[in-house]
């Protein structure tokens, strides 16, 4: 189908619609919100599902087939925080702390954007490789570490916390559930998996249903940041859309070189284009207190995330198709 149909189909899929509902709820000043523990519980469930399924697939995959994609992912984890930092510092004239803080977000990855990309590729019949969750785990922390390192070096920041914070990122919820899930999934094998598949399968209705509720709340959170869009200024607005496109293109291209399918390259592009809003914010808040949270939270949550799930992913898909010729 053509781009326009693809876009339309994507916009009318549950993920963007649930996100829009959350935003609208905030716009009409509704007090609706998902209880915090439910929100956390859903994110735990979603991440663990990704890990488990990824582990089951990993057991099948040949090391060779993963090696290059893994290398490409790590490379993205090193490049994207630096490009982000330089663009903001040089072109955007942002301070060191703000530039490094935002770089930590864009150097990491958004699991929900990843999920949206996976279901998009499936919907258009271009399934990504089964080992993608492994790449998701690989992309989570390097970018944050590099960005915080840049920040620590460039600022006379009180490093009383840095070491502790890096450890927190490495042992955070996302890593425990993704990596832990990968190991469990790989060890328990098909037999163990089939017994819990209906509950944990990322392609199943339970996962998709829970995801819809989670994204509804993400919409509420993003909606509460819309007011800040004015505060962040035009440069960051543009940055929040153009940077993902550049990182997305880079991700798709590296994925292509690494031998990923069209679907796989699309998802890797979406991962590179996405910005973390779970692991990065607290880490940045503690190590770069001078970085303004309004900047990095608004850019990641209220600009880049919606752009990716609404338009970015189909765009990266087109890029991947074009590269695949």
């Amino acid at each position, binding site marked *: 189908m053509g781009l326009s149909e693809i876009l339309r189909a994507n916009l009318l899929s549950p993920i963007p619609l649930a996100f829009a509902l959350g935003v609208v709820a905030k716009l009409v000043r509704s007090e609706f919100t998902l209880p915090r523990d439910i929100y956390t519980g859903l994110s735990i469930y979603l991440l663990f599902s990704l890990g488990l399924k990824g582990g089951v697939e990993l057991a099948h995959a040949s090391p060779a087939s993963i090696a290059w994609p893994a290398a490409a992912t790590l490379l993205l984890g090193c490049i994207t925080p630096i490009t982000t930092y330089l663009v903001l510092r040089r072109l955007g004239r942002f301070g060191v702390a703000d530039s490094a803080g935002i770089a930590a977000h864009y150097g990491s990855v958004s699991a929900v954007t990843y999920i949206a990309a996976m279901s998009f590729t499936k919907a258009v019949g271009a399934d990504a490789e089964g080992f993608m969750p492994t790449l998701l785990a690989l992309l989570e922390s390097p970018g944050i570490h590099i960005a915080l390192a840049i920040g620590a070096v460039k600022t006379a920041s009180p490093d*009383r916390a840095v070491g502790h914070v890096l450890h927190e990122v490495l042992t955070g919820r996302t890593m425990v559930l993704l990596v832990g899930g990968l190991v469990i999934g790989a060890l328990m094998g098909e037999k163990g998996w089939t017994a819990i598949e209906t509950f944990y399968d990322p392609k199943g209705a339970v996962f998709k249903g829970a995801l819809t509720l989670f994204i509804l709340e993400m919409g509420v959170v993003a909606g*509460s940041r819309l007011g800040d869009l004015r505060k962040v200024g035009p440069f960051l607005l543009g940055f929040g859309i153009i940077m993902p496109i550049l990182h997305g293109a880079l991700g798709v291209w590296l994925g292509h070189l690494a031998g990923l399918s069209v679907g796989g390259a699309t998802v890797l592009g979406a991962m590179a284009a996405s910005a973390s809003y779970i692991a990065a*914010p607290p880490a940045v*808040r503690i190590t770069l207190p*001078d970085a303004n*949270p309004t900047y990095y939270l608004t850019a990641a949550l209220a600009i880049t995330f919606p752009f990716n799930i609404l338009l970015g992913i189909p765009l990266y898909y087109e890029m991947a198709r074009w590269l695949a010729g």
Partner: protein
Amino acid sequence: MHTTTLNLVTIIAEPVLEEMLTRELRQMGARGFTVTESRGEGSRGIRASDVPGQNIRIEVIVAPAVVPAILAHVSTHYFPQYAVIAFVQAVEVVRGEKYI
């Protein structure tokens, strides 16, 4: 009932600061602390959690001699950059030695 007069220092801060603050409070001589989840508003709305306005409320009972050090510490390390407030009250406790 014999009681001793000590000071209760209450610190309201962003959640990300909990571990750092409690560790530092212990280093400054606190024998214990109590943390309560809360939310609030003040002059500075910024927060690093996507739950805006979520706060923690740290209570620590200490000897009056320790209070200046604590206030000085939060004033220099936290007030400038974080959404943090602190206030001090006098409290009567039993087993005063327990807190010193």
